[in-house]
C-alpha cells in the first residue's frame, strides 16, 4: 500500500530522516512512535506530498509522491499536528468546503458528510464556529475533514494531543473502529496510545527506524530481559563486587547505600535468564542477608526508553 525506500530528508544542513525504508500493508493500523523531533511528522509530510524528500522514493499504491502526487493526495485523508482549522467557519460549512475542495460536488455527497458527522460525533456542534469549540471537538472536526472523501488511507499526526483522558479514549475507539476498513498511520509519542490502537509499531529515533513489529513481537524480542531490584545488608562491598559476575546478570543499573547501611541494587538480566536463585545463593555464601528481591518484565515502555533514550 505505502512503500518507503531509502528516504532521506535534510532541512538545510540538519538531517531529519536518515535512509528510512518501510512498508505499510493495506488495512493495517501502523503506529509511528518516537520522541518529539524524531522525524515522524517529516515522514508523514513527505507521504502526504507536503514536503519533498531529499532522496529516496515513496510510493502510495504504485503512485510516486513526486511524479504522481495528485493520485496520492486523492487517496489520503490527513489530520496534521494540532488539527489546524479555519476558526471563523462553522462545522458544516467547513466540512462541505473541504469536500468541494477535493473536487467532490453535488447533493448526493451530503450523505457522506452526514455519515462522517455521525461517526465523529459532531451532531451537537454542527452550526457552531470552530473557534468556539473545545480542543476535543476541534480534533474531531479535523478527523471528520480527513474522512469527507472516504479515503483509503488515513494519516493522523498526534491526534490526541491536548485532550483530556475521556476524550483520548473516545478518539482511540474511533481510530480502532476506522481501522477496520482503512489503512491508518498514526504518529504518537504516547506509548499506551500506540499499544491500544495499532497492530504494528515502528519506533523512530533521530531519523532512523530502531524497531519494527507488533507490540507483542517487540516485547518478545526483549523477553526475558527484565529488571531485578533487591535490598541486602551485611558484607556489602564483596557482595557488590561479585554480583555483576553472576550468570544471567547483564549489568548493574544502579546501586546505592541507605543511611541504615542497606544496599539497594537494580540489575538488568540477560535475555531469557532468571538469576534470582544465583543472587540468593550469593547472599548465603557471602554472609549477606537478602531483604527484598523482585523481578519485573520489560514493558513496551522500557523498550521505547531503551531505544530512544540518550542516557544509560
Amino acid at each position, binding site marked *: 500500500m505505502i512503500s518507503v525506500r531509502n528516504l532521506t530528508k535534510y532541512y538545510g544542513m540538519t538531517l531529519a530522516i536518515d535512509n528510512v525504508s518501510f512498508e505499510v500493508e493495506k488495512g493495517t493500523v501502523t503506529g509511528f512512535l518516537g520522541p518529539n523531533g524524531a522525524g515522524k511528522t517529516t515522514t508523514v509530510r513527505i507521504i*502526504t506530498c507536503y514536503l*519533498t524528500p531529499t532522496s529516496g522514493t515513496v510510493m502510495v499504491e504504485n503512485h510516486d509522491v513526486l511524479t504522481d502526487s*495528485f493520485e496520492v*493526495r486523492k487517496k489520503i485523508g490527513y489530520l496534521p499536528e494540532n488539527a*489546524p482549522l*479555519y476558526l471563523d*467557519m462553522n462545522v458544516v460549512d467547513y466540512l462541505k468546503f473541504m469536500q468541494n*475542495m477535493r473536487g467532490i460536488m453535488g447533493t448526493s455527497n451530503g450523505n457522506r458528510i452526514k455519515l462522517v458527522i455521525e461517526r465523529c460525533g459532531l451532531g451537537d456542534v454542527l452550526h457552531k464556529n470552530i473557534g468556539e469549540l473545545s480542543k476535543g471537538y476541534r480534533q474531531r472536526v479535523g478527523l471528520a475533514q480527513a474522512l469527507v472523501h472516504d479515503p483509503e488511507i488515513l494519516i493522523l499526526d498526534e491526534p490526541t494531543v491536548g485532550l483530556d483522558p475521556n476524550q483520548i479514549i473516545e478518539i482511540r475507539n474511533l481510530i480502532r473502529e476506522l481501522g477496520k476498513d482503512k489503512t491508518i498511520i498514526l504518529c504518537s509519542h504516547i506509548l499506551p496510545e500506540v499499544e491500544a490502537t495499532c497492530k504494528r509499531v515502528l519506533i523512530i529515533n533521530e531519523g532512523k527506524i530502531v524497531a519494527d513489529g507488533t507490540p507483542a513481537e517487540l516485547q518478545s524480542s526483549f523477553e526475558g530481559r527484565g529488571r531485578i531490584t533487591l535490598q541486602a545488608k551485611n558484607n556489602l562491598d564483596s557482595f557488590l563486587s561479585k554480583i555483576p559476575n553472576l550468570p544471567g546478570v547483564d549489568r548493574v543499573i544502579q546501586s546505592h547505600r541507605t543511611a541504615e547501611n542497606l544496599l539497594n541494587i537494580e540489575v538488568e538480566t540477560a535475555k531469557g535468564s532468571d538469576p534470582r536463585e544465583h543472587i540468593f545463593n550469593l547472599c548465603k555464601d557471602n554472609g549477606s542477608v537478602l531483604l527484598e528481591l523482585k523481578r519485573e518484565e520489560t514493558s513496551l515502555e522500557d523498550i521505547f526508553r531503551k531505544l530512544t533514550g540518550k542516557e544509560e
Partner: protein
Amino acid sequence: MHQVLTLAKKEFRSYFDSPIAYVVITLFLLIAGWQFSTSLFLNNTPDLRNIFGIVRFILLFFVPALSMRLISEEKRLGTIELLMTLPIKDWQLVLGKFLSAYMLIIVTIFLTLIHYITISILGEPDFGATFAGYLGLVLIVGVYLSIGIFTSSLSQNQIVAFILSFGIVFVFFMLDKIIFFFPGFLANILEYLSIDYHFNNIARGVIDSRDLIYYLSVIIFFLFLTVQTLESRKWK
C-alpha cells in the same frame, strides 16, 4: 477549476465574517464621496476625475489591508498544510485567493458608480472617459493585489505582509513622480514601470494594448512569484 471558485467563494465570505470588509468598504465610500462632493459643490465640476485620483491613492492602503491575511493567516493557523495536501495545484490556490479579494475590491469600486448616476442627472458625463477610468482602476487593483498576495506568502505575520506590500506598491506608485531626477534612458524605463503612467494613458481614453500588457504582465509576474514562494517550502 471549480476548486478555484470554491476557494474564492469561501475567502470572499470570510471577509464578511470579520469586520474588515465592512470597515474597508465604508471608509472607501466615505472618502470617495467626500472627494466627489467637494469637486461638485465647491469647484462646480461634475465629473469623476477627482474620484479616480483619490481612489488610486487610498487603494495604496486598502488593497494591502485586504490582501495581507490571504496566505499569512493560513501559515499562522497551519491550515496551509491541509490546503496544500489537497489534490489541487499551488497556482489554483493562489488564483482562488487572488480572485476573492479582487471581487471584493471591484464590487467596492463599482459602488462609486452612484456618483456617475448623480452626474448624469445633472448633466452630460463623458461615458468613454468614465469607462476608461474604471478599467484603469480595475487593472491597478490587480497589480496592487498581486503584490499584496505575494508579500502575504512571505510571512506568517499579517502586519509584516501589510507593510511590505504597501512599500512595494508605493514604489510603483511613485516611480513616475521621481523620474525628473534620473537621466533620460533610465527615466524611460522607470516611466514604463510606473503604474500611474499607464493609468493616465488609459484614463485619457486611449486603451492601448501596450498598457494592458504592462498591467497583465506585472500581475502574472507577482502571482508567479507567489506560487514559487509556496513551492519553495518543499525544498527547504
